[in-house]
């Protein structure tokens, strides 16, 4: 059902945990539907220097969270805003069709974290 890459990121998720001194936090999803992702980012000179996540959800949701934090690290904020559901799924060698929408919330949560950071800068 899941690709080897999804299983790897699900079984050994990268960047798990809370980030008490985060510069931006984004939460997406709803536990009633099944998946909730909380993404924390650390930003320096317009670049994401660190990213962490906490996720309530299925295997796909956890793998997506792990992947999105891996991808975002080192990116500029504008680059990170270009991460999409499709590019995340591609990086994971695909997701089952029924998981594309409800579990693939990583890009949205990351974008919210960036928005949160930018709002705090104003």
């Amino acid at each position, binding site marked *: 059902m*899941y690709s080897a890459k999804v299983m790897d990121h699900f079984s050994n*998720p990268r960047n798990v945990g809370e980030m008490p001194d985060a510069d931006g936090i984004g939460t997406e*999803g709803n536990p009633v539907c099944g998946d909730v992702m909380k993404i924390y980012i650390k930003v320096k000179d317009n670049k994401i220097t660190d990213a962490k996540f906490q996720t*309530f959800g299925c295997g796909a949701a956890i793998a997506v969270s792990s992947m999105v934090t891996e991808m975002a690290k080192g990116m500029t904020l504008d680059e990170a805003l270009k991460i999409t559901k499709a590019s995340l799924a591609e990086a994971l060698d695909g997701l089952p069709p029924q998981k594309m929408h409800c579990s693939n919330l990583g890009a949205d949560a990351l974008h919210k974290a960036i928005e949160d950071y930018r709002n705090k800068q104003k």
Partner: protein
Amino acid sequence: MNKIYLDYVATNPLHPEVFEAMAPYFKEHFGNPLSIYEPGMHAREAIENARECVAALINAKPKEIIFTASGAEANNFAVKGIAYANQSKGKHIIVSKIEHHSILNTARFLEKQGFAVTYLPVDKYGTVNPADVEKAIIKETILVSVIHASPEIGTIQHVEEIGRIAKQKGVIFHTDAVASVGNIPVDVQSLNADLISFAAHQFYGPKGAAALYVKEGTRIVPLIYGGIQEGGRRAGTENVPAIVGMGKAAELAKRDLRKRIEHVKALRDKLVNNALKTDKVLLTGHPDKRLPGHASFVVEYIEGEAMLLLLSAKGVYAASGSACSSKALKASPVLISIGIPAHVAQGSVVFTLGEEITDNDINYFNETFPQIISRLREISPYAKGWEGTEGSACTAQK
């Protein structure tokens, strides 16, 4: 690595003796039971022997057993067949909210055909109150169908009492006993049921063989028209090996039932007692009046499919009623019916035991399960509680 199958409610492995009994009917005795020459007669005889064994398992008469290809078919047959046979008397049917899809979806189909359906609520253990059945019966009621035991939460209903009420009111009573027959004693005489569905693969028989008990004298409209098989009530050339297997499995179940119950109940209790030691793990279904090999939980703050994947990586195979683990991406209606909030229902996990499970298996499981829970809770944003989630509704496009 250990491999521990804890999903007996999904299906059972075939008993070796059942396999042995079936084998000759694939090759040597391949005849069509309707043929009048020797191979045909041999097949016919095998089916009738199987019918006797299957009838004996539930204390019925052989002619009250109609073989079907699945429990779902038996359920469809019972509900549609009784509805169509009795529609001149009335067009009202009563079912519970925690029926299997093969009952619920058939009831919904009949609603589109002009029947009215009452869906009875259940209490927090998933039990239908027989008094609710009594209240729901009206002049037009022709059928009450209440599941005997829930495959999802294990709860066993007061079917004897519901059957007694239906009988008193002159209403036909069907029970879906797919999860119970062969796992707990089921006796048609004490159950007061006019129709009972059950399936061979729930008691170490093959898939593709099931039965509907139809009490003598009960009129039923066939689902499948054609030849004179099954007394004209279910046409189609019989699946002889599978039916032979169901007969053998019924014979073994009748012989070994006590032993099987004792075995799985002791191990199940050990599993439950250990699982409940972990914080915020709740048993779903009735604590005592439940299937002996059945343990079902909701684990708060984490999601069922993720648990199943990590368990599977440890060689433990189980089931869940969470939205994410279902193809329909909907939380189990059974869990919602017993009052579990949708976000908590996401943490559903179901373990069902059988003959092959050993004490060592449960020791390994008891060690593994809490580790998996704490691992997923380390990832979860709710590890400290459900703050901010109460009362939210799912609006996501599925």
